[in-house]
């Protein structure tokens, strides 16, 4: 499956803005960049739905709305069920000849809390039923909206308010759940991991997800300056580091067949380009406690997990 869609940066810049200015995301917000880029990939009329989370709150603070398209806010747990309902309603309207468009795309957005933890049953059900929608997980690795509580997406060793780093525990003791692999296991036609730093790759993947017939899942890393504790200007730099250290490799799985995307393929072919994970950790305040003598061993642990996951991914992509 290759998308026939070609675009230049100017094409994207001339497309009308779907997530309008004036939304109240923090300065340097990663998810806001992700949303803007994904909404540049649309091909016609769309309906968006959003689970409770940062981006739902900041984009629709009553009576203001930053959305120039039909948008529905749902509770934390049911964004995928909502998207499934929208898609089924559109199908029914089309059958009755009451839909004035040929096709309407449905996008479901959710954060890591609404996907990893609370929303997974609705997501799993919608994927199993095979509804035609794109599910976007913007992963800022904790419940940032309510004040940085740990989620299933928070990485090992990270500080959050509910996995505090003290003298005994070095941040979160558990590991990040491989959510995208769980979605591949559902046997859905398109799953991809993307980052806003490689925006061309992200926009192409979003388009592929919309074009595919059936559920598509997009896992996008979206740094949060408040929760990850770094300067607002570093958002894109950190995402790039996440890819270069293989903390967040970029890949896609079409009908269950894994393939690495260009930025990660380069690292697979030239392993000397892989940066130690320490460089990624030291720019973020949430890992600051790891750079003390008592917790230094956790950095090695993280490096081992990352290496193991990277090796496993290479095997899946037939590049080991």
């Amino acid at each position, binding site marked *: 499956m290759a998308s026939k869609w070609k675009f230049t940066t100017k094409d994207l810049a001339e497309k009308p803005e779907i997530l*309008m200015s004036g939304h109240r995301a923090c300065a*340097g917000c990663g998810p806001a960049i992700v949303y803007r880029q994904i909404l540049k990939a649309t091909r016609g009329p769309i309906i968006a739905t959003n689970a409770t989370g940062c981006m739902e709150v900041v984009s629709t603070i009553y*009576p203001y709305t930053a959305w120039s398209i039909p948008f529905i806010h749902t509770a934390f747990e049911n964004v995928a069920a909502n998207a499934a309902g929208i898609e089924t309603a559109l199908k029914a309207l089309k059958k009755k000849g009451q839909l004035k468009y040929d096709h309407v795309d449905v996008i479901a957005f959710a954060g890591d809390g609404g996907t990893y933890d609370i929303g997974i049953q609705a997501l799993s059900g919608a994927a199993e039923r095979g509804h035609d929608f794109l599910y976007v997980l913007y992963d800022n690795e904790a419940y940032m909206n309510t004040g940085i509580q740990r989620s299933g997406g928070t990485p090992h060793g990270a500080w959050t308010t509910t996995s505090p780093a003290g003298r005994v525990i070095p941040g979160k003791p558990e590991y990040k759940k491989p959510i995208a692999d769980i979605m591949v296991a559902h046997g859905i036609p398109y799953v991809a991991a993307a980052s*806003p730093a490689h925006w061309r790759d992200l926009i192409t993947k979003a388009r592929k997800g919309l074009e595919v017939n059936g559920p598509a899942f997009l896992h996008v890393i979206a740094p949060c300056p408040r929760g990850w504790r770094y300067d*607002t200007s570093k*958002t894109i*730099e950190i995402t790039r580091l996440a890819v270069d250290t293989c903390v967040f490799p970029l890949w896609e799985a079409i009908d269950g067949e894994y393939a690495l995307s260009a930025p990660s393929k380069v690292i697979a072919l030239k392993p000397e380009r892989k940066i130690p994970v320490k460089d990624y950790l030291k720019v973020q305040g949430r890992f600051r406690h790891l750079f003390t003598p008592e917790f230094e061993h956790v950095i090695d642990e993280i490096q081992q997990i990352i290496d193991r996951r990277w090796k496993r991914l290479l095997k899946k992509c037939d590049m080991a």
Partner: protein
Amino acid sequence: MTSEQKGWKEIPIAGVCWRPATDYLTGDWKTLKPVRDKEKCNKCLICYMFCPDGAVTWDPEIEDIGFNLDYCKGCGICAVECPKKAIEMVHE
């Protein structure tokens, strides 16, 4: 910001938002503002792609980039990511 508030009889039912977010100017959040060196800029539009607030504007008629300081929150991503180092953040 909301000078004319609607009464409960006028507002739409079911919590439907009725004002565009563009009415709400987030530009006063910032302490630093971007300034572009037009000589260095090659209009690659990377700043446009990375702006979280859509505050980098592109005018196809004059083919030029601008900053909408009514919405810019001064995060400085554009200055860090500019490949030509044409953007500098200065105090307002």
